[in-house]
């Protein structure tokens, strides 16, 4: 009798303990990331595992979508009332997300150490109207990658410092019969095309907006598009660029079919050390070139941040996840596909080892990062510009007319 009572008690304790652990691990965070460029899906999963190991009371559900779906998925989930606690967002969205209350203002959560340690340029990624809507996480810009072997065969000693030099070198490579179309770009009807265009706009000293009105249809904005069109029509750029995204550019470059390519940080270690790359060990990287008399180098701000959504019921846990993911220790550990936001990391041998060339290019490129316009109507402007770029490349419209039409259709 006593024994059975004891067993019953033991049973009850076990059941109680079971429920207790369940009650303990009750916070579930839903997080949305992208399956494209920067940190790989495997990296993000490994970082998250480390977080949940250190915080057993929090469970994190990860979801990955292509970059092209990231904005719409975030907004739609919000519109339908449910959704994510933590979302990855691009530098171009804080204006819209802040005006439409998609993300919460986290300015008060950011510590003095964070303010001091993170590169000033990185902060622009998450700020709008004086407030911060998250932590910068992916610090990225487009670099000019080149195939050292092909340049050597063409007798080229140093990679181009200006965009005109790039044209000359590509022509030389084409004329020597080394490659039919030496340059690869991501000019598909997508944001990728705007990033390449912005890099050129920054080189030519152009402006997207002046006093909130479109200003890209003249001056540097027009010169940038004209450069793209002439590079395309003169046959030195891969004509398939107009349907390429960043991953297509990477594949072409890794197959040794491009001497030059404009792409994000992540391509460096994948192309130079990846097991599928045919150009491993031959990859060079420099900041995107400048324009004589106007700029030394050029760069687009392609950084991304992590923010807490306005519908999240667990903002505190979400913030502790974000601070973990953006911490210097984690970023230094995974610095092969995306470089840290922390200034002192760039002097840390553990980060720079084996990628000194990339770090060298990053120091110049990251300092020159040029923003895409900050406006709540960014998506409309971007779609109008994508159309202008493609129509000009296809010869359906002159760059002047195409950009004028984009300015009218931009909704600004």
């Amino acid at each position: 009798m006593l024994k059975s009572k004891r067993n019953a008690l033991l049973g009850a304790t076990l059941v109680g303990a079971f429920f207790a652990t369940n009650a303990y691990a009750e916070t579930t965070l839903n997080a949305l990331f992208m399956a494209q460029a920067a940190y790989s899906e495997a990296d993000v999963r490994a970082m998250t595992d480390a977080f949940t190991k250190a915080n057993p009371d929090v469970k994190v559900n990860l979801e990955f979508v292509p970059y092209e779906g990231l904005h719409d998925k975030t907004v739609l989930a919000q519109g339908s009332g449910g959704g994510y606690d933590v979302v990855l967002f691009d530098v171009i969205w804080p204006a819209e997300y802040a005006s439409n209350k998609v993300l919460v203002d986290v300015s008060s959560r950011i510590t003095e150490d964070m303010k001091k340690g993170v590169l000033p340029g990185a902060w622009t990624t998450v700020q709008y109207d004086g407030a911060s809507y998250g932590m910068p996480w992916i610090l990225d810009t487009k670099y000019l990658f080149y195939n050292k072997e092909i340049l050597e065969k063409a007798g080229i000693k140093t990679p181009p410092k200006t965009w005109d030099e790039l044209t000359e070198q590509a022509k030389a490579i084409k004329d020597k019969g080394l490659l039919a179309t030496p340059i690869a770009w991501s000019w598909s009807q997508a944001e990728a095309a705007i990033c390449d265009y912005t890099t050129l706009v920054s080189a030519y000293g152009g402006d997207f907006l002046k006093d909130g009105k479109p200003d890209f249809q003249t001056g540097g904005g027009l010169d940038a598009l004209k450069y793209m069109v002439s590079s395309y029509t003169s046959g030195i750029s891969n004509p398939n660029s107009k349907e390429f995204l960043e991953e297509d550019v990477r594949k072409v470059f890794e197959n040794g079919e491009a001497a030059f390519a404009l792409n994000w940080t992540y391509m460096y270690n994948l192309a130079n050390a990846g097991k599928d790359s045919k150009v491993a060990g031959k990859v060079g990287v420099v900041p995107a070139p400048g324009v004589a008399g106007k700029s030394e180098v050029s760069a687009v701000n392609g950084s991304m941040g992590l923010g807490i959504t306005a519908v999240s019921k667990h903002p505190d846990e979400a913030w502790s996840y974000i601070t973990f993911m953006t911490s210097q220790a984690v970023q230094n550990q995974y610095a092969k596909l995306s470089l840290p936001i922390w200034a002192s990391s760039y002097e840390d041998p553990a980060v720079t080892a084996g990628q000194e060339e990339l770090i060298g290019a990053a120091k110049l490129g990251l300092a020159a990062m040029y923003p895409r316009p900050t406006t709540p109507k960014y998506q409309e402007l971007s779609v109008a510009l994508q159309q202008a770029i493609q129509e000009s490349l296809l010869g359906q419209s002159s760059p002047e007319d195409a950009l004028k039409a984009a300015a009218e259709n931009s909704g600004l």
Partner: protein
Amino acid sequence: MSGTSMTTRAWLLMLPLLAVMIAVIGWPLIDTIHLSFTDAKLVGTAGNFVGIDNYVKTITGSNFQRTLVTTAKFAIISVFAEMVLGVLAALLLNQEFRGRTMLRGLMILPWALPTVVNATLWRLIYNPEYGALNAALTQIGLLDAYRSWLGEPGTALASLIIADCWKNFPLVALIALAALQAVPRDIQAASLVDGAGPFARFRFVTLPYLAGPLMVALVLRTIEAFKVFDIIWVMTRGGPANSTRTLSILVYQEAFSFQRAGSGASLALIVTLLVAVLAAAYAALVRKTAGSNT
């Protein structure tokens, strides 16, 4: 049982279904109609009443007109090709030969694939750098060099139509094949004895049995083709230079990418109206053909 109590009972039995339909279709529809007269954003404010502004702006906009033409082109060509291919495949699979059952099974495969899978598959086939189509065409000498199929306005829409046909002709073939089973063998035999050629036999013996079911297939396919979104979104996202942007993609951009729920709703309702008109026209046609058969 009297007619009235039959009617009452029928309505009572239908009530649960009606309630569900009103909840999942009626209410969202009314909500969308209401939205379409406001300047509501997707997230945040409810928006102000703006009358028919959204409709006027949508219909007079150049985007809408151009997109309507693209959608019509896509729908007409792809549905026509699917009908022809479907009937031909059904006639072939209706013959007696070894392996027929296996072929009939295989034929359904493309239709059973999720559209996104199909679209991804065809994007690989059309790939300008290492696509199978380029490889095949250059190897048999039809093409000098690899080319960009989805990157040129001249070929992008046609390439999408081919991918859509490959996926959807099996549905037409399936419906036609089922209809063919109803053609009485004695009439076929009699027409053969009377010396009717293959075309005459198809036109006067087979086709009358096919007309009704094919009309249904035509209605279904046209409505679907008019609403096309996923296959294009995955393959070209409406590019190059918006040459493959259809009405549904325009609705998506307006309502979700640009977050203008109000004008997006007006555009969606215009598309719904167009599809409803098509459906009504076909329904009338179906009634007419059914009437002439009996």
